[in-house]
């Protein structure tokens, strides 16, 4: 991986390209969520435009993972509305499945299926959800495995790969569904320091192609260079939201300043 380009400077990333018509990819309006008595999400309002790249940071327990997990209904919200790709999330299972088909997700612990090979991990959803013929699905999977630079691992099992490779497979697996929106839930937090870079590079190249991305991460370098907007959350609320330069150089809220001073040395 050493010959691969390092993280690209932000000016090479294309500006948000907004196709006419459906310009909003995700919209959260007044979203609240409780775990029992505990109020995890408090009045979240967020509008993500198509092609926009959003980085969400904040201390642990601030509700940032919960928020993006609400977007594909891994968590249920109890108040407010969430509209994804023009479809409102309700209890209707059909709609939930419809949304999940269009929203890819990468997890902190990859969540690859250990009993399937890398290739099978990637072709599973296209075959069973998109009803794609096996051969086409395999071609597609190999295309994305080449893109994340591990086509040679296709017939191995996840347990045989390093953490960084596994996370790249997870990204390829999500891409095989041709999602319109990608969610990343701390994709590099469980990785060895040496492997963070290869995953970030993959995410950067995804951003270059104009993918709509919501990314929970503490990789501030990544945020600075790729994000259109950075969101800081604490105690279940959005404290501050700004474009990266302003966010890092001139944070407005005291809590944001404190947080940034803790993580940027």
């Amino acid at each position: 991986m050493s010959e691969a380009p390092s993280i690209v400077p932000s000016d090479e990333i294309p500006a948000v390209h907004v196709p006419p018509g459906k310009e909003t990819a995700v919209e959260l309006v007044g979203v609240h969520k409780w775990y029992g008595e505990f109020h995890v999400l408090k009045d979240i309002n967020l509008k993500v435009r198509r092609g926009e790249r959003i980085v969400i940071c904040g201390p642990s327990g601030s509700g940032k993972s919960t928020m993006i997990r609400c977007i594909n209904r891994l968590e249920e919200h109890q108040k407010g509305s969430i509209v994804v790709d023009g479809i409102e999330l309700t209890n209707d299972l059909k709609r939930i499945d419809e949304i999940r088909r269009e929203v890819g997700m990468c997890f902190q612990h990859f969540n690859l299926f250990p009993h399937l090979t890398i290739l099978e991990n990637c072709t599973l959803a296209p075959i069973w959800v998109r009803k794609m013929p096996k051969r086409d699905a395999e071609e597609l999977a190999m295309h994305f495995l080449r893109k994340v630079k591990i086509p040679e691992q296709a017939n191995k099992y996840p347990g045989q790969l390093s953490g960084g490779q596994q996370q790249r497979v997870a990204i390829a697996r999500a891409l095989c569904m041709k999602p319109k929106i990608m969610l990343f839930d701390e994709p590099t937090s469980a990785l060895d320091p040496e492997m963070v870079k290869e995953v970030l590079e993959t995410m950067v190249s995804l951003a270059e192609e104009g993918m709509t991305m919501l990314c929970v991460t503490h990789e501030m370098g990544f945020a600075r260079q790729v994000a259109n907007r950075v969101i800081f959350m604490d105690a279940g609320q959005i404290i501050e939201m700004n474009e990266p330069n302003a966010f890092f150089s001139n944070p407005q809220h005291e809590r944001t300043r404190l947080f940034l001073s803790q993580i940027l040395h």
Partner: protein
Amino acid sequence: MTFAIDDHTFVRQELHTPLPPPRRNIGVLGWMRENLFSSILNTLLTLFGLLLVVLILPPLVRFLILDAVWTGDNREACLAPGTGACWPFVKAKFGQFIYGFYPIDQRWRVNIVFALGAALLVPLLIPSIGQKRLNALLFFGAYPIVAFILLTGGNIDASAFLFQHFGLFSGLAGASVAGVKLAFWLDFLLTAGLVTGLGAVIGAALGDARGVARIVASVFLGLGIITLLWDIDFGLQPVETRQWGGLLVTLVIGVTGIVTSLPLGILLALGRRSKMPIVRLLCIIFIEFWRGVPLITVLFFATYMLPLFLPAGANPDGLLRALVGVALFTAAYMAEVVRGGLQAIPKGQYEGAMAMGLTWSQMMRLIILPQALTLVIPGIVNSFISLFKDTTLVLIVSIFDFLGQLRAAFTDPNWASPVTLYTGFAFAGIVYFIFCFGMSRYSMFVERRLNTSHRH
């Protein structure tokens, strides 16, 4: 090799090449040192184990082989003091051990069932042989029907029975000119259509009308085929299950129990973890009920008490009742084993599957169950083995399985000798051991084969 070594800084100039391990750690001697004599306690245990082998093995070999009687026509051969196993006894009673009281001139039917079963099962168990789907369909779908016809003789007039007890439109019987058969099939088609329609309505509520309707329709199709086949007179002499016995009964109960209890157990385990409270409650009640009563009680109840509760005339076959009892009993245990596996699957696997848009049944079938079942193979096979051995309890409801036939053979005065009992039980032990050990070894093979998660 030059190293720049001093007390505080060190830079390696050349990477170390691997060397062979010290002699004493490898080879037979190394293995023994490591595994048998690694500590004082281990050495003592090794010596104790050796002592046990010396105490047990020679008498066993002497009894079973060296001092054994191999030829003879009756008890005279085995009467001499100090004789070992009386193998002629086993030889003389062998047919009874295998077939029970199955008519001797009809035993070829049992042989065909055995041979067919083996011919279908063996390729199913060997991974490198292809056509698994067809093979499984034949073994789980066609084979039971064929075996049933061969063993009982078929021609059980199932349509008349079903029509009488389950016919929805009994008015048809009077209206039909062509007799009960036509009336049954009309009734059957109407019922199938009705229930399929009902399934579609329920399915629509669940979001998959076509899927549910298809499942219901295929169940009716299967039922129809079975009824049709079981109504044909193949000219086979009917053999009542009361005449069955020996290894035949042991295998029929064992295999049926194994084949039905696993899917039932999986459904129960899924039900117990379901989010739907009624489904969950029903599954818990079912599982706890069957786990709470001993198998003997179940069999006893099924045989002697059940007829009192059933309407007159509806008197299901004794073996069938025992079969159902054993299958449900094992299913409850299986459910808990499978639930253990389901609980061991990390939440991330569910989330990964859901995030890709898989439906619940796809997620279970493709992601969760394959992993959960692989994890609990030892537990599943444990249940299989104990089921296989527990089949012998049907003896108390007058079904003579392998062990039952053995005990019956002991009463034959022709073969009464001091060693008959020991010989018989030794033989039974060997037969049971072959089956159970076979299952155990095969399960270990499957486990190794399916273990992909820790492969490095």
